[in-house]
């Protein structure tokens, strides 16, 4: 990396960025708050819809690149028995994501690895290419956060085209990491200025390391068969909340939906907690109970992924433990593993 490019902007940078980008006709996703108080990234058309102060968004970024449900194929059967396949892909429009957290941006690294594994997944990559990610560094991690335990940092810049420090109550400092980031800065024009020479990034926010993934993997390597899996999954309901809110979980299903002579092939999210996930048409299920499915989830994240891609498939956002209906706590489970 060459010289770090830094820019400075006002405390209101988020709102001015929204206005500047919307004025330029670019699609913008920015943090908004729903009636029930949920903070989430949503398409906005004016800075009035945007909030500037929040711990993290309810949803991670993955649904923007791997939508919950997306059309892979359209078909129409003709009179002569022929089949027309579509749709013709439309040129992708530029999209800017403003104000996601560094952990969520870092998760794109894991998704990139999977969706670029020998085969480049076109629907994913198109969305990835058109998108600029502008993250907001964390100054106050939440109690459920543990990014530093999985190789991340509250100020991590991984997969952020731009990383913003400060804002909301203080002036913002923008670190430009990629060419897409530079283009973003150009669009903001007069609301940003190059930071004076010698400007330093703020001191990193401290966040204690809560477990050691190496140690966890060491135990996982030896304990495919263990009572741990049964005991710790007794409470697990087998729903998809943890996976669906996880920034790195990427499993999907492909289904056809037909009506009369036409229909769609769709890619929908799927989840290893579901009994159906691995069920063969013959009725055989390689993962027949919740213990096996719970094991798959942990093994995939903390053993298989490191073995295949060199890092754990977890960014420490803590959404799974925060949202679990029965208080299943990944951190506690990993601490338990580490202590064995």
């Amino acid at each position, binding site marked *: 990396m060459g010289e770090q490019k830094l820019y400075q902007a006002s405390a209101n940078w988020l709102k001015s960025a929204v206005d500047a980008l919307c004025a330029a006709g670019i699609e913008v996703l920015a943090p908004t708050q729903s009636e029930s108080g949920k903070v989430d990234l949503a*398409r906005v058309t004016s800075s009035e819809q945007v909030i500037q102060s929040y711990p993290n968004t309810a949803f991670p970024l993955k*649904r*923007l690149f791997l*939508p*919950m*449900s*997306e*059309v892979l194929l359209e078909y129409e059967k003709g009179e002569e028995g022929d089949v027309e396949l579509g749709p013709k892909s439309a040129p992708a429009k530029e999209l800017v994501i403003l104000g996601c957290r560094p952990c969520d941006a870092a998760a794109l690294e894991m998704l990139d690895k999977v969706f670029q594994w020998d085969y480049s997944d076109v629907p994913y990559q198109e969305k990835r290419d058109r998108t600029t990610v502008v993250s907001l560094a964390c100054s106050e991690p939440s109690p459920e956060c543990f990014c530093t335990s999985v190789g991340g940092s509250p100020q991590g810049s991984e997969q952020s085209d731009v990383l913003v420090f400060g804002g909301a109550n203080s002036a913002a400092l923008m670190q430009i990491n990629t060419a897409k980031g530079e283009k973003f800065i150009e669009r903001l024009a007069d609301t940003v200025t190059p930071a004076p020479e010698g400007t330093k990034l703020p001191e990193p926010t401290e966040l204690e390391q809560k477990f050691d993934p190496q140690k966890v993997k060491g135990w996982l390597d030896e304990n495919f068969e263990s009572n741990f899996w049964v005991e710790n999954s007794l409470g697990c309901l087998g729903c998809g909340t943890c996976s669906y809110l996880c920034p790195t979980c990427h499993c999907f299903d492909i289904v056809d939906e037909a*009506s*009369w002579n036409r229909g769609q092939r769709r890619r929908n999210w799927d989840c290893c907690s579901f009994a159906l996930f691995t069920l063969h048409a013959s009725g055989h299920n390689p993962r027949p109970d919740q213990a096996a499915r719970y094991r798959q989830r942990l093994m995939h994240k903390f053993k298989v992924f490191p073995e295949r891609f060199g890092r754990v498939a977890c960014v420490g956002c803590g959404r799974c433990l925060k949202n679990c209906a029965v208080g299943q706590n990944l951190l506690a489970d990993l601490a338990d593993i580490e202590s064995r």
Partner: protein
Amino acid sequence: MSEEKQNQSEKSQWQPRIVAFLCNWCSYAGADLAGMSRRGYPAAIKVIRVPCSGKVDPMFVLKSFERGADMVLVSGCHPGDCHYTSGNYHARRKLLAFRELLDFFGIDQRRFKISWVSAAEGAKWSSLVKEITAEAQALGPFKTFATMLQGEPS
């Protein structure tokens, strides 16, 4: 032609699609009798024969709407006349409760009809179909389901 007029003429040309689930023993025979006695009734109705009105799961109705039906009719034997003694009593409970649920969701319950037509009531069948076809015609295309896929989740 003005737009309004054009809409009107399209509406008059438009034919509703009505899916009818008829029990094998009464209503289907009733419809058959109507045909045999040369009592005409509108062709908008597409008949699906089922063993008993009690067999009709609300999912049949929902699926019909999903696949483009503008109206769905379930018709069985009159109370007390069920070939299987009580299928239509069960249907009555289940389907009326289902209709209340549709209404709760704000889905127009006029789109979902239930009737009793016996094997001897060819005339009732013929007039019933005329009546509900006219109603479906007046209600126009069932947009609730048709438009449901237009907004893709993001």
